[in-house]
């Protein structure tokens, strides 16, 4: 794991167990992410990808041998404190505040900037997501799925995160929108953000992530370069 001593991991997950009430869904999941790196959690529906992300941010019950973000042990931290350390989360269901306007949705996500980077502002976000600019005053409930997905990402960026957990950003979107999404995510990477992507769409994941973590029934069964995973799948036919 000391592949790059100059660039220590920003997120270290080790031995993560996650639960829905009495039912355990994720068993001893471990992986690390470095600044600027994009890691894809891949696997079938129900393999535990979304659950892993929810557990990291603290939205469901969890236990872990270690859960370190930006040098802080976040195991006992409430969700909002983890978010304030700079870990963004974009949920699968998008969970847009449909009663609020687009601009108000962005306002909910606003957090002070840490470090020396330029703070994200609505104006900067509207450059990346021009569709949102046109509907800033509109109720977020009256947007298409793709627009809502863009808003969900933009809203998380308003918190000026150092890493983002992206849960199935391509789900249910048209190929054209998926392509726009990929461009936006690559843009975030260039900005130095670490990205953990949960994705069933392996082609989309491969476009963004260089590393893949394969989950099967809540257990990690592969962790390595994306290319190796694709090759393995190809070999298996």
């Amino acid at each position: 794991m000391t592949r790059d001593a100059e660039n220590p991991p920003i997120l270290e997950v080790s031995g993560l167990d996650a639960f829905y009430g009495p039912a355990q869904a994720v068993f001893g999941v471990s992986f690390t992410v470095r600044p600027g790196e994009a890691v894809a959690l891949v696997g079938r529906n129900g393999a535990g990808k979304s659950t892993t992300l929810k557990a990291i941010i603290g939205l469901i019950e969890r236990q872990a041998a270690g859960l370190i973000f930006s040098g802080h042990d976040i195991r006992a931290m409430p969700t909002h404190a983890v978010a304030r350390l700079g870990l963004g989360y974009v949920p699968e269901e998008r969970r847009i505040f449909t009663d609020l306007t687009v601009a108000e949705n962005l306002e909910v996500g606003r957090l002070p900037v840490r470090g020396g980077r330029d703070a994200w502002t609505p104006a900067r976000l509207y450059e990346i997501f021009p569709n949102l600019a046109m509907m800033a005053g509109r109720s977020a409930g009256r947007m298409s799925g793709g627009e809502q997905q863009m808003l969900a990402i933009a809203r998380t960026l308003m918190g000026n995160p150092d890493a983002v957990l992206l849960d199935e950003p391509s789900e249910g979107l048209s190929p054209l929108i998926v392509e726009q999404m990929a461009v936006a995510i690559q843009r975030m990477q260039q900005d130095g953000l670490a990205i953990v992507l949960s994705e069933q769409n392996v082609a989309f994941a491969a476009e963004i992530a260089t590393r893949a973590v394969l989950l099967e029934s809540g257990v990690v069964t592969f962790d390595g370069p994306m290319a190796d995973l694709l090759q393995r799948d190809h070999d298996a036919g």
Partner: protein
Amino acid sequence: MSPPRNAAFTQVHPTMSLAFVLTQFLNGLAGAASLFIVASGLTIVFGVTRIVNFAHGSLYMLGAYVAVTLMAPLLDVSRSLPMFLLGLVVAALVTGLLGVAMEMLLLRRIYRSPELLQLLVTFGLVLVVQDLVIRVWGPLEILGPRAPGLKGAISVLGTPFPTYDLFVIAMGLAVFCGVWLLLFRTRFGVLVRAATQDRDMVAALGVNQARLFTGALFLGAALAGLGGALQIPRAAASPQMDIAVLTDAFVVTVIGGMGSVPGAALAALLIGQLNAFGIVVAPKSTLVLVFLLMAVVLVVRPQGLLGRPEPLALRVVMPEGFIGLAPMTARGRQVIAGVLAVLVALPLVADAYTLKVAIEVYVLALAAFALAFLIGNGGLVSFGHAAYFGIGAYGAGLAVKKLGLGMEPALVLAPLAGALAAAAFGFFIARLSGIYLAMLTLAVAQIAYAAGVQWVDVTGGDNGIVGVWPARWAANRVVYYYLTLALSAAGIAVLTCVLHAPFGYALRAARDSAVRADAIGLDVVALRRLAFVVAGAAAGLAGGLYAFSKGSIDPTLLAIPQSVDFLAMLLMGGLQHVAGALVGAAALHVLRDFVLPLTDMWRMLLGALIIGIVLVAPQGIVGGVLRWAPRFARGGPS
């Protein structure tokens, strides 16, 4: 729903003249303004915390008492309107701070608890505050000063209309504008509205929920306090004002849509006018009219006029119902046989007083068991169980007094009356779920209560019905003891059989996942309606037995405190165990019998007990026993 105190129209000839209509309209607006100020606080708190705060009425009452206390010295300084306004503001702020204390000390611990426990905790607080207020300010009403500069009346087309009521209308408008600006033009408001929709997502975006909740409680409590303080020039502060306003505020919130401030405003306007003009059409049925409006709105639009449908339950909480319900074991039968043998032998050793207590315990145990059947097995959190119990009692009482029937047919009519009421109410209730269902059970129970109080010709009003005595052969206490024991045990046995019948299983399936139960072909709504009928019949039988044991009936049997008593029994015994209701009924009733003569603070004790159980031992007595004596776990009474 109290009729407008200003009854100017009664002084003029009540024709529908323009002046009359206009003054009634203004009366309605003044009522609406008062309602809105209180209800907006309740709806904001619910929106953010998802807790229906029963103690909101207590905060209103505290606001009134604080204002009464403050106004005298303030007006001594200068008898002027600004001093009066200062008194209002300070009373609101003090109440707001009390709300903050309540959030930080109590509510914060129960945000992740099941709804039933949340409701019970805030109701426990209602009981505690009632006794505290009596202790601090005494049991008598305290009249507040009139507002300087706002005394007297103005003329509306020749009809006098109180100046102070115009002031109340203006305050209602000001509060609406202020709250609107706060919600729609500040970051706090944006966060409150976002949290109303999805508080977990708000947390994931880095917003500290605790602070947001504290802020919401401050705002909600301050509005309640302002509402109470505004009331004192019109009505004296009294220790009973909490429940009255609470029901009003609930109705407004539920009709408007829980969590929606514009909805609360709309509903307050509707109810204000309904009260103002309803009192002309049907002077004695205003209570019933308002609750009927609520029932109609909930049936047509369960989420209220401007509310949003409740999101599918995303949170993971411990089940509120029976868990691990297994068929009776041989050991369980032995335990039950042993307990029954002791109860049958009891008259050999017990004195008359012990027998009287035992009779009451059996009756309450049957009624509580019926509620446990609804909540534990059906997941149907009923806050109005007293309705079926009371209607059973009234059914028996009226059969004897009005129809001239004997005890035996009356005891057949009692469960029928309970079942019939449950069928009628359950028809509407069963269509809802979660907190809306709980609120509708409360509302329909209040309709029954209102009928009990207002329908004097039939029910005898507050005096109730007296002289409901058992038949000659059962008049002996020991005989009535055996009769009660036999019928209660039979009722409980039948309900237990139903728990283990396919209907019981289907009901549990619907409780655990209505969607999946539906998908495997179960008619969830029909199952729930039937559950209400079964529970209503059992509670009705209990009510009938109770009527004959007491000899008299009055509307308190139908009232909210009686419903809360049943819930407290379940809580005390243990919500997750079949035997919990029985143990809880016995424990609470014996405790009450023992403690009540020793103290005039029973309500405070009961409230503290409820809060304590939820915070410290939510598994109740049976849960506690099973935990400490695991060997009972398989063989205990089930």
